[in-house]
């Protein structure tokens, strides 16, 4: 097996034993990038020189006998909406095509502290708005399992990079499923932590009350290792929660006897492909065999998650994206009559159609006279959805559902039908509204395309989710299946 296809925990051992160097590993990944990137287009910006230097620095430190953090020297890709000091951060938008942040996001500081090697910045739907990576202002990313298909979105570049061997680990962000959906479509592990578990400082905001950074990995162990790096309280993010961060590896025991798992019937209904349902049912049997108690349950307000999401997220986005006006940084339209004209032209030319659609939706939802009917009502629905989860999670340790209603679809198939595109997220949106953690792990294949299973847990219950996901992974043997 090539180095670029290995898991971080295996590479970590090889590095520690001196079987390989971080530089070799880094070169192997870049070699892979050179081979497949033309077809996949997972990246917006590659940082080859710095990556090699970081890798060499790790090797030097190791030779000097320094005690290194667990993931030192592991190559990582980062979604292009996470600010990297001195490295272009575009959000896949023309409006930020030349923007170079003067500061690092908190998670970037943590990756640097962990001495991980930053490969580059990955493609995404513009400002994280989309489910297919087709809304990138630059070019779409392709699914490594079938390059005619989408990798899912919005963190499609990160998911595709990990699946295609173009990165060992990656960071994405999840506002309504933007980590879990591409993880499912690309056959990798992706996790959205609890809202407040990972600092948002330096994550370019789409919908502040829903956004959360999380990892992509080739297996559950790697996911746990990455969580160990990025989780934790950050005083620069007021919504970040101070909590006792466990060592997530300690949950990887394979032992889940007596665990109570609920399967909400709303997530197994008509909108879900029967092949996907079958795979989830098979997964249920795996859990039962492992000694878990699995029952059907209900999240009665599930149908309202999508409409609530498409009011709350665009409302926050309409305000968050107001700052891109051409005055201080990023794209500025030329030949403007005056400052108002400059605002209009810059934003008309700089934003893509989906971003404009959501800005308009959000502006409308917050307007005088409509606020109560739309935004305020959506907030109330959000409370009901949260209550659904609270109740269910009082009874069950975890909830199990498909990550997406189907497998990766063909590029261009849904671009002209926003509603069809939005439906792709029906299994993931509610988790963000509730603020709880959820993982997507590979659960099988349908016609050669991966299917993801979603496990949802209590706030700050990442450990229990990892415990179940790991047990499932060990038992089913469905991991590390990567396309060539």
């Amino acid at each position, binding site marked *: 097996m090539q180095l670029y296809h290995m898991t971080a925990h295996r590479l970590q051992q090889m590095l520690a034993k001196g079987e390989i160097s971080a530089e070799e590993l880094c070169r192997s990944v870049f070699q892979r990038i050179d081979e497949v990137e033309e077809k996949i287009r997972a990246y917006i910006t590659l940082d080859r020189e710095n990556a090699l230097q970081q890798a060499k620095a790790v090797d030097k430190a190791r030779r000097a006998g320094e005690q290194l953090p667990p993931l030192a020297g592991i190559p990582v890709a980062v979604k292009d909406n996470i600010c990297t000091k001195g490295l272009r*951060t575009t959000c896949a938008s023309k409006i930020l095509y030349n923007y170079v942040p003067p500061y690092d996001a908190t998670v970037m500081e943590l990756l640097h502290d962990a001495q991980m090697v930053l490969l580059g910045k990955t493609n995404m739907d513009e400002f994280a708005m989309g489910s297919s990576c087709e809304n990138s202002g630059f070019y779409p990313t392709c699914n490594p399992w079938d390059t005619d298909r989408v990798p899912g979105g919005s963190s499609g570049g990160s998911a595709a990079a990990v699946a295609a061997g173009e990165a060992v680990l990656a960071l994405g962000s999840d506002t309504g499923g933007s980590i879990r959906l591409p993880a499912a479509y690309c056959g990798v592990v992706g996790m959205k932590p609890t809202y407040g578990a990972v600092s948002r400082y330096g994550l370019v905001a789409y*919908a502040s009350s829903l956004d959360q950074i999380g990892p992509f990995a080739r297996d559950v162990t790697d996911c746990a290792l990455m969580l160990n790096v990025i989780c934790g309280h950050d005083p620069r993010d*007021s919504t970040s929660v101070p909590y006792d961060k466990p060592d997530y590896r300690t949950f990887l025991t394979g032992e889940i006897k007596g665990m109570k798992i609920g399967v909400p019937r709303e997530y197994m209904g008509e909108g879900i492909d029967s092949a996907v349902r079958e795979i989830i049912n098979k997964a249920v049997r795996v859990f039962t065999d492992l000694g878990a108690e699995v029952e059907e349950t209900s999240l009665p307000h599930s149908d309202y998650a999508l409409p609530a999401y498409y009011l709350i997220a665009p409302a926050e986005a309409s305000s968050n994206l*107001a700052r891109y006006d051409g005055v201080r940084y990023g794209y500025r339209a030329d030949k403007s009559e005056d400052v108002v004209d400059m605002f209009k032209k810059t934003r008309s030319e700089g934003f893509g159609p989906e971003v404009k659609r959501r800005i308009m939706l959000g502006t409308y939802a917050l307007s005088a006279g409509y606020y109560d009917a739309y935004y305020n009502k959506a907030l109330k629905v959000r409370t009901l959805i949260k209550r659904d989860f609270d109740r269910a999670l009082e009874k069950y340790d975890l909830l199990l559902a498909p990550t997406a209603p189907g497998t990766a679809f063909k590029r261009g198939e849904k671009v002209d039908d926003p509603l069809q595109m939005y439906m792709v997220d029906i299994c993931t949106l509610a988790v963000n509204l509730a603020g709880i953690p959820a993982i997507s792990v590979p659960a099988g294949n349908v016609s050669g395309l991966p299917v993801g299973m979603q496990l949802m847990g209590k706030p700050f219950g990442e450990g229990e989710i990892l415990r179940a996901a790991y047990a499932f992974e060990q038992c089913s043997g469905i991991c590390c299946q990567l396309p060539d």
Partner: protein
Amino acid sequence: MAQYEAVIGLEVHVELKTGTKIFCPSSTEFGAAPNHHVCPVCLGLPGVLPVINRKVVEYAIKAALALNCRIAPYSKFDRKNYYYPDLPKNYQISQYDLPIAANGYLEIEVNGRAKRIGITRVHMEEDAGKLVHQGSISTTPYSLVDYNRTGVPLIEIVSEPDMRTPEEAAAYLEKLKAIIQYTGVSDCKMQEGSLRCDANVSVRPAGQTGLGTKTEIKNMNSFKALQRALQYEIERQIDLLEQGEQVVQETRTWDEDRGVTLSLRSKEEAHDYRYFPEPDLVPMVISEEWVNEIRSTLPELPDRRKQRFVRDYGLPAYDAAVLTSTRELADYFERCVELYNHPKTVSNWVMGDLSRMMNATGTEIGDVCIRPEQLAGMLQLLDKGTISGKIAKTVFEEMFRTGKDPEAIVKEKGLVQISDQAVIEKVVEEVIANNTKSVEDYLSGKERALGFLVGQVMKATKGKANPGLVNKLLREKLGK
């Protein structure tokens, strides 16, 4: 002609004197080079998040308590959305429906009549930056933006529409300024923009209880401008009603040079700010213990202090009001009285010569170079008879200019009062000999002639003769 009554409410913005900005660690220092006090957060760069400065909340609570407000146990921030190049995020973080404090009041006095003015609410928000144009905003080829002020903490204090005249409005603003200054949370300098005021004005026939259509007046940069603008606007609205026309609800700006208010934007053009809860900040839960802790740090406020000055120093209410109008002046007065225990005398000097010279030179009390010890020292020289009252005024002026000790000035300029009877007697005799006409007048009963003779003696001694002694000796010599 019908009698009209104006209804005025004020919205006052006060800049809080915290060392750092409301949501980031940048300095709030005034007058730095453009864009010197900025960081990613106050520049609103992509990805940054605000973190509330605890000191800002403390100061806002302190000001609100001084204004007799109720502090909200649960309060939150909201986003006020509008596009302007001096606003880096194109929204301002402010407070909308759950402000930090509400339901307060302060007392004013106009023409001897006391009145209570209600305070609707006090809320916290961030300041915007400053645009620099070349000449006029409409013709400038380009504009520059200075973000130093962006994120400087403000509180907005909204009054009830309780004022009826421009004088009441000015008295309210004066009192508000005094109270806030007393608390020490702001300098309240209108020239530097740390105190800004907008007004809502309407008029109605006297006796009517419903409100007329109001206009909002902006851009009043001094107390004088506030009064003039309100006077103009009230008259403008009355004229409209008299002519059978209607007042249009709109925002108007005060044109200081032309002395008129001009329409800025109509109600239809008013912004829809699309307020919604700021998702990057968590709601604030404010404990009663903290409020009490802050309350315990409140200084004695102007009304209390004024009452104490009347009671403890036996000062007239007018003196007490003037002396307590700023904390610095009141502190100055009290320090002087500590050293020279004749409150009324000190009051006379502070309100008389000191105030006059401060006004004439545009000096603030904090910059006056006569220390209380020096003023007390001069008053003691006066008591001892070392200098006369007249010379005291000369010495005082010199002290004000140079900050020197009174003893040093007296010595330097040879201003010691002549109380030596023999010396004065000699001059008196000369004056009597040289002014026979006045002497005759005096002897024939014209008392006023004595004043002339005293003046002549003072003139001959360059004002240094002890006036009491001169009087006494003249009367004795003239045998009356």
